[in-house]
């Protein structure tokens, strides 16, 4: 089923691919959380236009398949006169896409903090930004940590989609090796096991984290 020799012979290409996938995941997660925080705050804002704009953004991205967003960015950005290349294109795409999902997670997190905390922070003279930064968001993000990590695992798997625009992420490198050597079954089985080996331990860790957080609260 697996041709270890073939894997070893191509280890550089495959390692590079894996690193690319991990980098893309890390970048889109961090970028997605930052942008997602802003979107969540906008969504919860009392200023209606801001709230509606944020809602429109989130609903748009959540209603379109990721593959389409990847294509759309890749082909349409050059059309508007920006030459950014496939790499930058997917980094931006994933950040924008993930931000929509993270913003919903963060919004739920913010809403899970009691109004009393807000009142207490205001009563001490903290401003709205200070209240969010020092009181509400730290608690919200902590509560949301397991869900966010789950989303990150999903994101890591989704990065394999960038193969369709010819990027050599882990999936892309695997495909190259597979077709160059006529070893589809062997290489795709190997890829499946590799994805599993990254994702499963994280999922297990998450379960334990869930329990620990449940104890602290």
């Amino acid at each position, binding site marked *: 089923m697996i041709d270890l020799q073939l894997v070893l012979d191509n280890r550089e290409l495959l390692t590079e691919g894996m690193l690319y996938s991990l980098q893309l995941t890390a970048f889109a997660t961090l970028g997605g959380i930052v942008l997602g925080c802003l979107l969540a705050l906008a969504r919860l804002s009392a200023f209606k236009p801001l709230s509606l704009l944020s809602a429109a953004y989130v609903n748009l991205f959540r209603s379109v398949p990721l593959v389409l967003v990847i294509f759309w960015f890749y082909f349409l950005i050059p059309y508007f006169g920006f030459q950014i290349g496939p790499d930058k294109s997917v980094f931006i795409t994933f950040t924008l896409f993930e931000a929509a999902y993270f913003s919903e997670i963060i919004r739920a997190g913010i809403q899970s903090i*009691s109004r009393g905390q807000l*009142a*207490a922070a*205001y*009563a*001490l*003279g*903290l401003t709205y930004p200070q209240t969010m930064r020092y009181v509400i968001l*730290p*608690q919200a993000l902590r509560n949301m940590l397991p869900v966010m990590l789950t989303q990150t695992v999903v994101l890591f798997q989704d990065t394999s989609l960038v193969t369709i625009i010819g990027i050599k992420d882990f999936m892309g490198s695997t495909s190259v090796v597979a077709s160059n050597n006529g070893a589809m079954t062997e290489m795709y089985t190997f890829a499946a096991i590799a994805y599993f080996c990254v994702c499963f331990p994280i999922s297990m860790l998450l379960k334990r984290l869930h329990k620990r957080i449940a104890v602290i609260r």
Partner: protein
Amino acid sequence: MIEIDKVSKWYGQFQVLTDCTTRIAKGEVVVVCGPSGSGKSTLIKCVNGLEPFQSGSILVDGTSVGAPGTNLPKLRSRVGMVFQHFELFPHLSITENLCLAQIKVLGRNADEAREKGLQLLDRVGLKAHAAKFPGQLSGGQQQRVAIARALAMDPIAMLFDEPTSALDPEMINEVLDVMTQLAAEGMTMMCVTHEMGFARRVAHRVIFMDQGQIVEDAAKDDFFGAPRSERAQQFLSKILQH
């Protein structure tokens, strides 16, 4: 110090406060009581601008709370508030709870803030717990920390919204003792509470509210001696039975 003048507030169609008028002088301790839903919390939250109101005015040390140009965070930093459910920040240690606003709002440096915080923690008898987190303290201890946190801002007045009603009976006194001491030191205090023993011992005046109105606003002895309104009489007899 606190001048509340003809304050009215509506939630949509529902009028929560109707023409509330009272004054609290410097150093005065005023207890606010009344049945559930009568608007006590709402009134006290209007004083530091946590709740907006539609008509009337509130002056705190000469600053109008409802005026458009008022710097509310600044005003709130000068008025301490203690809540029914303590509202310590659970992700911060006791020391950090005491220091956060001192540093971020008053601009004190970390050492100064810590020293002030520990001094107040000592005053409420909890110095040994400085490094703990709120979840590790009992309700009474948390409420005392909350009082210390408010005092760390050097407030000109303190607002209390039922500070003991979420506490087990054996913890009520440790909080009331801190409040009593505070009153003895001349702090201006507005306390929503049903602890009539505390009111008798400590308050100068008692305000009785019903259905959003200040029905009775009398010196302590007058209030407990002979409340004028029937509602207040009923309320008192109910509450003093147990």
